[in-house]
């Protein structure tokens, strides 16, 4: 179990780093997908079978949609003429390195609480009971957020924009 955990963890981070290292946008998208699938595998290892499979299902769909937009908007989606597409690389490296160092120090410095109780017999059922019972507010907020996003994205993405065909520009 532990070995499998670390294999998946290293694979997740390595493919996450590959996203910004490969030239081809299609490869970058699928490297990101590989990272998500590895985290989905970690969820399965942690006993969250429903959520793990859900991550796999949703991320494959999401990355395919992403690939469509990627090919649509990037200048060179196949990476046939590699060119640098970054700015302030050094600053970004320093900032993210510092953040990682701080987070890692926190991980080992903070005295985490001990494990309380054991997992329920069916974690998926427990999750369903929670979001339809005591945590229903979360589900309602998610639902409204999804509705708002659907409306906003359609308004933003239509050809005429938010003011209509002959509206104020």
């Amino acid at each position: 179990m532990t070995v499998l955990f670390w294999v998946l963890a290293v694979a997740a981070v390595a493919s996450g780093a590959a996203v910004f290292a490969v030239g081809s946008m299609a490869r970058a998208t699928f490297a990101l997908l590989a990272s998500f699938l590895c985290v989905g595998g970690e969820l399965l290892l942690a006993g969250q079978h429903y959520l793990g499979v859900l991550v796999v299902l949703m991320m494959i769909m999401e990355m395919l949609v992403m690939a469509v937009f990627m090919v649509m908007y990037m200048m060179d989606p196949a990476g046939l003429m590699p060119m640098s597409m970054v700015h302030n690389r050094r600053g970004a490296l320093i900032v993210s390195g510092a953040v990682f160092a701080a987070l890692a120090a926190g991980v080992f410095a903070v005295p985490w609480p001990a494990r309380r109780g054991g997992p329920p017999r069916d974690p998926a059922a427990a999750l369903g009971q929670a979001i339809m019972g005591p945590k229903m507010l979360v589900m309602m907020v998610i639902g409204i957020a999804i509705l708002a996003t659907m409306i906003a994205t359609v308004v933003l993405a239509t050809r005429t924009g938010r003011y209509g065909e002959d509206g104020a520009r």
Partner: protein
Amino acid sequence: MTLQAFLLLAAALFSVGLYGALSQRSIVMLMMGLELMINGIVAAAAGFWHQVSPGAADGQVLVLVAITVMALEMAMGFAVVTALFRARDVDMADDAGDLKG
């Protein structure tokens, strides 16, 4: 599979995503960085659920919220890129600097 292991994985994913979000010029690539950061949050929430309080469903609910946020972030991001591309034929974050209020 200790809690520290899960959190270390989460920190690494978060930092790699942060590097991408800060350094990439294309908005599409930038959003990939953001997705990686949320991916780290999913890993951390899974770790907390499994290693701290598996009896309560809070960790699982957090994972569910993070997955939804990922989907919404991507939909919204692509809508903005589409609007920007229609107006200016660019998908670069640097060329949209005048959008800051």
